[in-house]
């Protein structure tokens, strides 16, 4: 347990000191992008911990990205207010979608999340006057200076995202260890038994869904203000499925899993220097290999190796 904690914190430490060694903007950009998707993937993992499969997580990132951009550009709010509001707006939308769909058992929820994500994308495309349509929203301002730190280079973004990632990580670990997390996993293991001992399973599924989408909204808001641009092409079904793949490849058994998954899957194509078009093929191969050889995800690798040794 202690060892596991140590390994995840040493990971964060490496990320923290990395810019002291290199400030290559290309590398920083990759790390920031990976971090954005990690935060979203943590939300997916939380929703999956209640046994629900979401196929439209990118839509809640889009809602976060667009609402935060509009709040700053049209509403004149500071980024530091729009950022948490973006998360809250995503969570409220999740509540409205989850309330009618999570009371029905079965695959309906997954189908609705998928359909809703497409609806959101179409709304963005067909409302150019407000949301910029296909072309997207450009000139989204950078965050206002934080104390004396100005967001003019990649570095402040890098540390802002690291802070967001650490906060998300701590919240997720806390939920896992708390009674709330135990309730989530018991619904996953047997929803009928959970109901029979008095757990209102719909309520807890909605709570998990809203928290997961809250963090999607935050990561979407960061995304928009980091690239100063947002477009419906950023938030398609592919991105939703990538979030899912990050969780499955890294392993949903621990909070560290999605982090490992998103880093592994972002770095592999970079190291192999393959064209962006071939990325889905590489992901597919890795996903299939993991599912056959390591169903617990990368996170279960050390345990598997240790287990093999003792035989």
């Amino acid at each position, binding site marked *: 347990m202690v060892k596991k904690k140590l390994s995840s914190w040493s990971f964060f430490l490496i990320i923290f000191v990395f810019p002291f060694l290199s400030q290559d903007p290309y590398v920083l950009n990759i790390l920031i992008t990976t971090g954005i998707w990690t935060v979203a993937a943590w939300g997916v993992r939380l929703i999956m911990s209640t046994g629900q499969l979401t196929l439209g997580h990118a839509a809640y990132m889009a809602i976060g990205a667009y609402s935060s951009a509009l709040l700053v550009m049209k509403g004149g709010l500071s980024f530091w207010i729009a950022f948490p509001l973006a998360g809250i707006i995503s969570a409220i939308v999740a509540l409205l979608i989850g309330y009618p769909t999570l009371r029905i058992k079965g695959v309906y929820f997954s189908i609705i999340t998928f359909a809703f994500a497409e609806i959101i994308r179409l709304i963005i495309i067909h409302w150019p006057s407000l949301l910029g349509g296909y072309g997207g929203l450009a000139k989204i301002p950078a965050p206002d200076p934080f104390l004396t730190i100005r967001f003019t280079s990649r570095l402040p973004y890098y540390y802002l995202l690291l802070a967001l990632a650490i906060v998300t990580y701590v919240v997720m670990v806390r*939920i896992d260890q708390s009674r*709330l997390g135990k309730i989530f996993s*018991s619904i996953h293991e*047997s929803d009928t038994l959970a109901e*029979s001992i008095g757990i*209102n399973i719909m309520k807890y599924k909605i709570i998990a869904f809203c928290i997961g989408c809250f963090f999607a909204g935050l990561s979407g808001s960061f995304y928009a203000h980091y690239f100063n641009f947002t477009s419906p092409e950023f938030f398609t079904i592919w991105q939703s499925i990538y979030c899912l793949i990050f969780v499955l490849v890294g392993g949903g058994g621990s909070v560290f899993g999605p982090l490992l998954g998103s880093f592994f899957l972002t770095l592999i194509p970079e190291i192999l220097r393959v064209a962006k078009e071939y990325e889905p093929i590489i992901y597919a191969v890795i996903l299939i290999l993991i599912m056959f050889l390591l169903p617990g995800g990368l996170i279960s690798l050390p345990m598997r190796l240790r287990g093999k040794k003792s035989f």
Partner: protein
Amino acid sequence: MSEVSFELEAGTILGLIGPNGAGKTTLYNIISGFLPPTSGRIYFRGEDITGLRPDQIAQKGLRRTFQTTNLFKNKTVLENLIIAHHLQVRANFWDLLINSARAKVSESKIHQSSLDILQFMGLTSMKDELAKNLPHGHQRALGVAIALAASPQLLLLDEPLTGMNAEESAQFIKLLRTLRDQGLTLIVVEHDMKAIMGLSQRIVVLNYGRKIAEGSPQEIQNNPQVIEAYLGSERII
């Protein structure tokens, strides 16, 4: 199901029997809120509970077990019990998340109560085992332990003796009697006729979704309709 109506007295054990497919489990699902009845009402302690959700019915003090083994398989025996105390938690969402003092007091009480129930059910020695690794008889016992965790007033047991050997069964029946003597009311579905006749004060017999008889074990054993339901009519033989 139709024309099924019966009452039961607090602090007694009611046996519910009938051939396979008679509707015993369906009746359980209706009483405990997993299936909505198309007509008719269910009253529990003078209160109409028809149409409530399973978790709301559990909250009223009516708990059930399942015919197939239904446990939180990847949790330990103790964790199963702790989760089962869900209704005793006196802490709100934020208490749970930040693990406040209120949540801690609540948790330590629940921990003690879980150990007490495990002791009572004879599961103390395996409290740190994963539920899926228990032998079948102990899994059944854990299923009942989970149902007991909310100190229910009425407990519906669905074939609790399945998979137990003679010695385990005898032990288990003794536990059920103790529970009844402590004031718990029980409905038991069971195929072991000898056990159910010895245990119950009253018996209700179902066949093809209808109640065909109700009475004391002696009355039921001599009821020709019941004998026919189980053995077929004499003429055919």
